């Protein structure tokens, strides 16, 4: 068994409004000198530490947890799972 650190990023699906991201873009970033930025999306990140036999198993286990326990709401959100060696 090895230990892995897993980042779970929960963000809105395309088309779901993100007023916080829009405010950061329009009222902070674009009001400065950073005119090349065109989009900001907010997201929530959970960091898991998990012991599994390999990276692939760790990823599928975390995905299973996210789906089963509704860590993200599939109506409006999507989740991405990224595994790192601890």
């Amino acid at each position, binding site marked *: 068994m090895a230990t892995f650190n897993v980042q779970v990023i929960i963000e809105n699906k395309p088309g*779901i*409004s993100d*007023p*916080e991201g829009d*405010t950061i873009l329009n009222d902070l970033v674009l009001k400065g000198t950073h005119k090349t930025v065109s989009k900001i999306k907010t997201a929530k990140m959970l960091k898991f530490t998990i012991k599994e036999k390999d990276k692939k198993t760790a990823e599928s286990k975390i995905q299973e947890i996210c789906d089963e*326990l*509704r*860590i993200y*709401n599939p*109506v*409006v959100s999507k989740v991405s799972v990224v595994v790192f060696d601890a």
Partner: protein
Amino acid sequence: MKVGVVVFPGSNCDRDMYHVLTDVFNLDTQYYWHEKSLPKNIDAVILPGGFSYGDRLRAGVIAAHSPIIKDIQKMAEKGIPILGVCNGFQILVESGLLPGVLLKNESLNFMCEWINLIVENNKTPFTNQFKLHEKIPIPIANGEGRYYVDDNTLKQLKKKNQIVFRYSQVVNGSSNRIAGVCNPAGNVVGMMPHPERAVESEINPVDNKPSSLIFESLMVKMGVVN
């Protein structure tokens, strides 16, 4: 008639709801802690407002995994009237008993104000005493109250008459100004505004009668006459 008020860690409108059910409408009411089961002979279940589990992860999602939810699902299937108010609505949505999701208000603010609801479905156990399109002055108090459904689901909701309440004007960016919905059978109803804060004339600056009809509808449905 026995009514259950479910209490989750972080519920904070449970006592207001209990007070209204017992002191205003003289109903036999009991609290049920979320880790306990519900008795088989219960006639209606209310999930009150509050901040179950401090809204951690997402409003209502952790409470949606509470043991009592399995009993509530069974009762929903049997047709027993179930009402979720505010956080109770969020829990019903997150447990899959009602469609859609509640997102942060468009303003990102916690909104605490009096609004007007329009009754869009007067066939549910909580709205059968209303005239269609009757207006209800009622308070909202929420941060995550923006009801969202995709366009296809919205069509389905309209087709199956599942939109129970709409705001009379844009309040928080909800899809189709929806403030409350029901399941296809109509016995499970969720609403963001707080009827328990509006049924007594002492604390309602506009008109307490419309909100009272929500509870009176339930009593009529159950054949209770006070």
